[in-house]
């Protein structure tokens, strides 16, 4: 059946994440029920079987994370989704995906924490956990949607990045965006760019699954394609087998770091609004970026020189993009639904050369446009 092109719909953020995953080619979902992310699992359970994909509700969050890694290893793009407590449980196997370099996407629809916290209320308390949640030095790519349309497109991008860089990618949504229903324009599938993992060109005898290439990203053979190799969470050499050789350890862990570090410009994505002519810069991400935009527009109408930097990726941290905007401004406002997790990074990036006003709300209520407007007008 041909659909009008493009399709305009009303859709919920969580559903848009699921639809984006399917558009990206995801055909396996493993998850565990948790508020406020369950609509992602429900949508995948509804859609995947008819597409000859597979949905499985696992016995726990840890198992769900293991299952998506296994599925990706045989060549099927795979997704799991969760919220705070489940995100904590997934950390062990997120680390495995990072060191074994298996592409997978994890959606964390943030709720209030710590622990069981506030299951039905929004927060942004997992900013640092999304970067450093699993132990050891490891790469991280984290995307932050602030609209239903971004849920859709950022989930597609998350799959593309995970395939391109052979790494787990996290979509850090929140309860507001996940449960928000608004208009979305979905392009025809032929208008969506899809990136697939690089396959080896060498014959199986000479295949090095963790080769230290110029791009830092080795080609990935799927299990069952004739390349019989070893995958382990132990630190390994370029053949994939465990090593205790300090030279090889350093070589592999440095490559793992450089894989993301040397590609910041390609990975980091920010949106600037009115940043050419401003004395005040608001830096925001996720649901808070919506409120920030509204308050900025109101202040602009009243003649205040306010700009907004919306962070579409928060990790790797957009240091260069922030510093660039700090040349001629008087203050930075960082509203967050946490105690200032990303504000600390911004203070570090700007070397505290510019006064930073943190606005933090941790009571389960959203940050409203009026909240930010009041800061813009009343705090100097």
């Amino acid at each position, binding site marked *: 059946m041909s659909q009008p092109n493009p399709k305009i719909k009303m859709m919920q953020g969580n559903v848009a994440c699921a639809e984006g995953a399917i558009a990206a080619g995801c*055909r*396996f979902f*493993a998850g565990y029920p948790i508020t406020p992310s369950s609509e992602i699992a429900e949508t995948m359970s*509804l859609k995947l*079987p*008819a597409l*000859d994909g*597979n949905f*499985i509700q*696992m*016995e*726990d969050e*840890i*198992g*769900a*994370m*293991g*299952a*998506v*890694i*296994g*599925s*990706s*290893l*045989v*060549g*099927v793009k*795979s997704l799991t989704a969760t919220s705070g407590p489940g995100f904590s449980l997934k950390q*062990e*196997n997120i680390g*495995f995906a990072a060191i074994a370099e298996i592409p997978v996407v994890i959606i964390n629809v943030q709720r209030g924490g710590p622990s069981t916290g506030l299951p039905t209320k929004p927060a942004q308390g997992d900013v640092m956990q999304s970067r450093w949640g699993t132990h050891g030095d490891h790469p991280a790519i984290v995307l932050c949607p602030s609209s239903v349309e971004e849920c859709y497109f950022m989930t597609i991008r998350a799959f593309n990045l995970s395939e391109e860089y052979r790494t787990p990618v996290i979509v850090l949504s929140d309860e507001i965006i996940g449960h928000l229903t608004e208009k979305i324009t979905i392009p025809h599938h032929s208008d969506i760019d899809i990136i697939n993992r690089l396959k080896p060109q060498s014959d199986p005898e000479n295949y090095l699954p963790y080769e230290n290439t110029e791009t830092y990203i080795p080609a990935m053979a799927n*299990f*069952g*394609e*004739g390349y*019989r*190799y*070893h*995958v*382990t*969470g*132990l630190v390994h050499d370029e053949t994939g*087998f*465990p090593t205790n050789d300090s030279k090889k350890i350093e070589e592999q862990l440095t490559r793992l770091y450089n894989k993301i570090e040397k590609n910041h410009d390609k990975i980091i994505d920010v949106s600037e609004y009115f940043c050419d002519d401003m004395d005040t810069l608001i830096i925001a991400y996720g649901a808070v970026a919506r409120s920030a935009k509204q308050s900025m527009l109101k202040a602009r109408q009243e003649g205040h020189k306010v700009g907004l930097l919306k962070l579409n990726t928060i990790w790797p941290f957009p240091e260069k993009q922030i510093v660039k905007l700090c040349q001629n401004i008087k203050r930075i406002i960082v509203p967050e639904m946490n105690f200032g997790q990303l504000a600390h990074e911004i203070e570090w990036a700007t070397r505290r050369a510019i006064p930073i006003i943190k606005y933090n709300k941790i009571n389960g209520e959203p940050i409203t446009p009026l909240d930010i407007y009041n800061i813009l007008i009343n705090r100097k």
Partner: protein
Amino acid sequence: MDYLNYLRKDKMPHIWCDGCGHGIVLKSILRTVDKLGWDKNEIALISGIGCSSRTPGYVDFNTLHTTHGRALSFATGIKISKPKMHTIVVSGDGDATAIGGNHFIHAARRNMDINLIIFNNNIYGMTGGQCSPTTPTGKFASTSQFGNPDSPFDISRLAEAAGASFVARSTAYHFAKTDKYIEMAFRKKGFCVVEVLSPCPTAYGRRNKSTGKVGHEMLKDQKENSVPIERARKMKPEELKDKYITGVFIDRDVPDYFEHYNEVKKRAKLK
């Protein structure tokens, strides 16, 4: 058969101690793969953490050494997304029934089409001999130096109760029976568990002299104290004290996960 067809020679010597039973179990697996003529490219051997979980590194299949206790969850993803892959998980008693206990009972409940070979040595060997969920009450380990206060799991009965298609127990001494049970498991659909009692002289025997201190003594103990399940059913509990019940615990023809999920797919496509 030539075992070297299946081993990664350059990864030898293996890490297993003198007298360990794990190599005997591995040979049973390889003999069965050879007998069934499976294509090495279509075999995934998956493990968690521990002595038995080092097995995948030594064999020339698609091999995956995962996190502690989680092998069955990775295997579930592999099997679902590539059903023609022969999916074998090797696990120890601690890996499968302590930290991985939840994945174990749920893989059995779903009757997921995976073969699980458990190398049960009643101890955490790799970390130096701490008591495990199958260390018998009163026995000694580095964390139970005054005798283990806990009751042990009966792995085979647990797998049977949780819904596995096929469950059997053998010992390292009874390698011919192990071959037979692994073959029955490999030929069968659904979740199939073969528990093999494997001596650990280094961490268990040394501290629990009743079962023998060194490998050959522990094998002799297995020989002398194993009771076939058919006979055990007629014996009193006190007669079965310190005995190893071996044999086929269950072999039933029930739908596996894929039979059910393929129906789901059919119904979804009609909508």
